[in-house]
């Protein structure tokens, strides 16, 4: 239990372990819903597909699509603002998308996954900033405290992975798919601005203090 508790309290997952638990419970529930819906298409009752036995499966599909679309596009950013946690904010949209890829027994960078990576990168960057805002109580966080290099390096890594994937994606997908992704391009401003700003502050601090001065991170 100690390991789990420590994990739940890790700043990559969130600043408040209770909220982190809520987010993980939400993801577990969503996974269960998607699996239940898939079971309706593959299981049979008396030779008839399970999904034909009740209109509830049609409703279930509709509900899942609504929840998943929100999970891919809105929830990561909302969670980041609510509880920080760049790691979980990045993972939230990828969970349902990756599950879908496994169910369909393929693994490609489709539009759903590209959007999930994009929003995940945004969520991670917002979580980095939100964590500092919650810790310092002010929005100009770089004036109030030092930078958590672990979180910054993590957010930089996932932003790089997502952005390089986006470049590969837009260069290879058909025109109509690119058009569907176009509205999400503007989101790249968020991680770009936040990550560049944080590294700018880090460089200024490094130049100003020298590299081997006392640790400043909290």
């Amino acid at each position, binding site marked *: 239990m100690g390991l789990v508790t420590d994990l739940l309290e890790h700043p990559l997952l969130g600043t408040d372990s209770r909220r982190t638990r809520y987010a993980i419970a939400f993801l577990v529930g969503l996974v269960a819903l998607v699996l239940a819906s898939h079971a309706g298409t593959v299981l049979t009752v008396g030779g008839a597909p399970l999904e034909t036995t009740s209109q509830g499966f049609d409703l279930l*599909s509709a509900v899942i699509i609504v929840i998943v679309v929100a999970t891919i596009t809105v929830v990561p950013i909302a969670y980041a603002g609510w509880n920080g946690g760049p790691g979980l904010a990045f993972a939230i949209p990828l969970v349902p998308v990756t599950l879908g890829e496994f169910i*369909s027994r393929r693994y490609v960078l489709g539009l759903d996954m590209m959007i999930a990576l994009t929003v995940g990168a945004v969520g991670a960057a917002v979580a980095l900033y939100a964590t500092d805002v919650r810790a310092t109580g002010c929005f100009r966080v770089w004036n109030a405290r*030092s930078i958590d290099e672990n979180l910054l390096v993590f957010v930089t890594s996932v932003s790089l992975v997502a952005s390089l994937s986006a470049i590969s994606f837009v260069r290879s997908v058909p025109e109509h798919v690119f058009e569907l992704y176009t509205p999400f391009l503007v989101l790249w401003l968020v991680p770009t601005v936040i990550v560049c700003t944080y590294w700018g502050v880090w460089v200024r601090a490094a130049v100003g203090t020298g590299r*081997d001065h006392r640790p400043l991170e909290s």
Partner: protein
Amino acid sequence: MTGRRPFLGKLATAGVVTAAGLVIVPSPPESPATVSGTTDESADSAIESENTPWLEADQPITDEDATPIARYQFQATKTGFEPTAPINVVVPLADAPDVDLETVIGVFEDAGWTREFEEYTRYAWDRSTERYVLQEATAAETYYGTSGRLHVRCWEFENVVSIQAHEDDAARPFHVIDSYDRGRRVAEALFRANGWGVSRAAIDLDNAEHPDHDGYASVVWPTSREGDRELDADAADTSETGSDIDDGPEVNPT
């Protein structure tokens, strides 16, 4: 801020994480370059078939029982079945014994579409058994269609595959059909890219629907079939028929 050595260690770790991430993230699907939604109508082929005389009928097909073609897909409701979207691509297989429904849906699968995904449950009327039949083969570009997707449902009745092809919009909150025409054009392009014959808007199914379906279905067939390889410029004229879009409902649940 940490010392130089620990920080360089973090950077090295970040490099490994980044490299691992790039390896884990999959590649985009390999779709044929023709899947742009545009159609070269000059390449349409003439339809000839002894086994499918209804393909050349002058009169519109207005009854689900008139031919093996399903004219609509249906949604099950508490009071019965209600049509939700028109069939807009038809694949006659009577002259192609080696081709079946799996071959037809395989064209979409080969384009990187998925066969298993989250979708609504729909049916089509089978006149031979006099019952509504659950979608027999489906394909879509993505599992959820977060920002929209191309999506097809297929049924095979009496050696004829009826396809409902459309483009979903982004789910806000439910998927609504954005375009039947783009779905049909992309389906045509995919079949043509695979060497199939295509005759655009060749059959009048009298099922025009908002927002952009003209009531006609394109006919697609494997070119291994005898007697239908010759090009006929007149076939392109059939594409001029469709502008009588009716004032149907603005929202078509997919």
